[in-house]
């Protein structure tokens, strides 16, 4: 199944999801189509579990999810809604709003939206969304929800979109990390209780060591 050749071009496009893939499992092979090995029963199991977690049971669900990430419905829209509502606030009026919250997730999202309310006005969380887009596509490919041709066609469009939005790997990856934090909460490192689970930032650092040639040329 893994017959299609990965050209440097495609490898680069696949690397949009490298960070997220690495976060979900340290075992993945970033230099393969799917990250997970379709010959390995345990890898297939974890891929299935992940897909189930994301509510993807078929090609239809996968494509709907991709559509929602591509159009920003999933992440950018709620972020932008929140950020827009904070743009006119002063520090003190923000604090009043913040103190009125009584739920950790919301507090966290408010903090992030406040922090990036201006800097991410254009990019929003597109980087994170498209990283997720590529990530889900790779997962779906394992179960044959999508064929190579479609994946590579979509990959090249993702690349074009990202190239229009970001100007470097650094900017892109920062966006991925912020997006991940916005959705999943602060990834605080707590190796004592979850050994082996890395924060996205940490994955990012390690990846630079393991793949020094990647992430240089945008």
């Amino acid at each position, binding site marked *: 199944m893994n017959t299609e050749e990965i050209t440097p071009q495609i490898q680069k496009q696949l690397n949009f999801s490298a960070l997220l893939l690495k976060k979900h499992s340290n075992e993945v092979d970033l230099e393969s189509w799917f990250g997970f090995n379709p010959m390995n029963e345990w890898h297939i199991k974890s891929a299935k579990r992940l897909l189930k977690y994301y509510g993807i*049971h*078929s*090609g*239809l669900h996968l494509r709907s999810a991709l*559509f929602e990430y591509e159009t920003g419905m999933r992440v950018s829209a709620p972020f932008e809604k929140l950020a827009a509502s904070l743009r006119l606030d002063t520090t003190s009026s923000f604090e009043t709003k913040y103190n009125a919250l009584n739920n950790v997730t919301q507090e966290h999202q408010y903090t992030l939206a406040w922090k990036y309310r201006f800097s991410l006005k254009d990019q929003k969380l597109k980087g994170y969304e498209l990283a997720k887009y590529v990530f889900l596509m790779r997962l779906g490919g394992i179960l044959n929800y999508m*064929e190579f*041709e*479609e994946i590579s*066609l*979509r990959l090249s469009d993702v690349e074009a979109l990202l190239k229009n939005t970001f100007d470097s790997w650094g900017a892109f990856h920062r966006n991925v990390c912020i997006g991940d934090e916005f959705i999943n909460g602060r990834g605080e490192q707590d190796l004592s209780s979850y050994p082996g689970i890395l924060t996205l930032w940490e994955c990012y650092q390690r990846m630079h060591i393991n793949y020094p040639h990647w992430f240089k040329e945008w």
Partner: protein
Amino acid sequence: MNNASASALFNDRILPKLDLSDLETAEQQALLQVLQLMNAEDSPSYLELKENLGNQAITPDFSAALSQQIYQHPEIYADEAQGFDWVASWLPLLKNGFFPDEQHTEKLLEFLYFGLAFLQSEKISEERQAQVFEVLSVLIHSQSEASLPVARFLLHRAFDLRDYQTSHFLVQQCLSFKLLTETYFAKDENEVLQEFPFRINAIFVEHFYTGSWELLLESIHQVLPVSIPGKPGAYEVLKPWLSEELASFYAANEDWAIHAHQRLVERVLFTEDESFEYLNLHTAAGKYPLITAFAEKEWDESDVLLFSLKDKNIPLAQTEAGFYKLQDWLLANKGTNFNREAFDNYGKAVFAVNSARELPVKSISLWFEMCNAAQKNLRQKAYFNEVFSHLLTDWQTKKMPVMSKDGNAFQVTGMYVLTHVLGELTSLKDGLPAYQASGLADPLNQFLLLCLYDFRSNLKEQISEERNAVLYDYLISIAYSARETKPYLRETGVQLCVEILTTVYKHTQTFAQVNEIASLKNLHSSVVAQCEDFAKFHYVNDETDLTPQIIQNWYLFLNEYYYSLGKEFLWVDAVLKSQGARLAAYFNAEEKGSFPDEILYRLYKFLKMCSKGSDSYSELGSIGSAIATHISHVLHDLKPEKLSKNVVKILYDYINGPEINAFHQMQLENEILPFYAYYFQEEKTTKTLSEEEDAALEEERIDDDVEEEETAKEPAAIAFDSETPLSKEVLEQVIVGLSNYQNSGIASSVYQTFLAKNKAELKALLEEDTALKMNMYQVLYLLIIDLEAAPGSAYEAYGNLGRSLFVTLVKGSSMALSYTQGLEMMAASGAYPEKLTQALQHVVTDLNA
């Protein structure tokens, strides 16, 4: 020695008492034989008799009086050893038909009664013992008055458990000497000895139990459980007596039948014998009273045990009630009875059937109870799934099983199962999500699918809105789970799911459902067509009215259609090919704001992407063509004011720009012009055109066919003579002239000579200006496919010019391929007359050459 002692006894004790005086000759004759038999030939009596009778041939008569003289010697019985010696010595007499009379039989039985202990003791030799029982056997089986009393005595003693040892001893003797078998003799009402069989019936009861069936049964029930394991006992004695009359008595007296159950269970437990014949007693009418009696009682383990020992051939109608009792028993105590030994060792036999036909229909609920998702006992699940796998033998033909109901064959239907069997057990709403988790691999889900499938046409009406959603989730989830099952399961399972879904949700208003059902096509190749038809029915159906939602979906899924390279959402293709005019009509009829703009912009975007990607993915070429066709259909009918100026500009620029594929351009150009004219040329015309032509432009909007003609009037005629140098302006004139050849009044030869002369310049000019080149190609192309310029028609010369020039210019250029494809399509379409088709093919050949 025994014989000697017996004859000694006869000689010493009886001979002296013989009184010959009252005997008649016939009796004397009989006595003579007696003496001979007893070896008393040298006794004085014998000699005397011999003398009296001489050699007369007289029939001997063993009369009652003589019998008295021979047998009636109670004093001998005073000593037990002597008594038995004496009885044993009778054998020769009895064999000769000289039986003791009734009176003496009583004495004999009295002696036996008290002598039984001695008879079993070691004080008597085995040989003598055997002789005694031989005598008794002859007495019973001979036509004598002694027959019935002796038989009755033995029967009562053998069945009398108060003296177990004697009873056991007698039972063994009965068996080894076949004492209580076959027939016995008794006097009928006329005092005549008749032969009767040892079989339980009214006469037997009369003879042995003073006519009381109750006494008989009490006695039988008492001895049933008694014997030594592995050895024959009283049951073997009475087994040959079992009869249809006994069964009839049980049938009429259920209490006794239930009492018999008790005894038979004890028998199984104590003697390890299954009493098959007794349990399966049946009446002449074929009723099995001991089996049917199971229906009427509270069950416990012992009933499970006995019921499982029933004859397999008993009609199902009679075992059904018992089966349901067993089912109740299994379901009691939260199903823990399954783990009891009684079920393991015995109950399972009841479920060892060869087909669904042998299982009563309501046992389905047992299956659902025992194997549902909440059950954690895997051994139990595996067992019942195996038992009920018979219900799924017709899985591949999608048929419900035939089961048994009141013993008759009963075709199970989905309706019956869902309303009668499961209705009480578990409602669809609460039950289904629980079953969902185990997927299609679970036989219960396979059966549920069959039921739902069978019931599918009425399912919609039967379920509420809330359950509707549950059912939908269930079916979709089962269908997906089929991916992980064996091929035979998968194929039929997916077919069933799709069949049910497309029936029940045929008119669903939820497009998410439509999409989800349609996407099941990827689960198995056999459902592809059905899924696609379903989607088409919802999306491309001229019968239903268009709604904004449908239209939105059309173009949303264009995205997926594009990315999947036309492999998913195939109905989008049908939309593109057939729905353009309909969409235009819809927009024309109603005010939809910017909706038409959005759609055309989206179409434009995808057309652009297709053209760009068609080099790497050939599928995108045909998708692009379909989109272009669609745009042309929409634009052809759409009123110009429905599109905004911006979108018209974008489309116009694109169509006239360098990026577009020539074939698409050809298709679209004429369609976009009226829109362009509506917004832009109006301004232009006020400056350059006369009032008159302005009016003509007004008409255009209504009839865009006229448009081509009108614009063609614009240029002033230029003389194409040898003096004229070829410039851009001149070439534009040529193009306009060629596109308007019918009205220009210029002969084709004018162009031909002019262009032939300036061939080199022409090529150079075209290379410089791409837009001009495209226009040139396009006008020639239109000429080639123009019916009016076809071979044999009025403007044939123009056609020839177009063809030769087209080949010269286009051949070898980057556009050659797409034009070739376009022409091939045209030629293959069959829309053109034969001559033109041939001409087109000729051009293709020339281009490819």
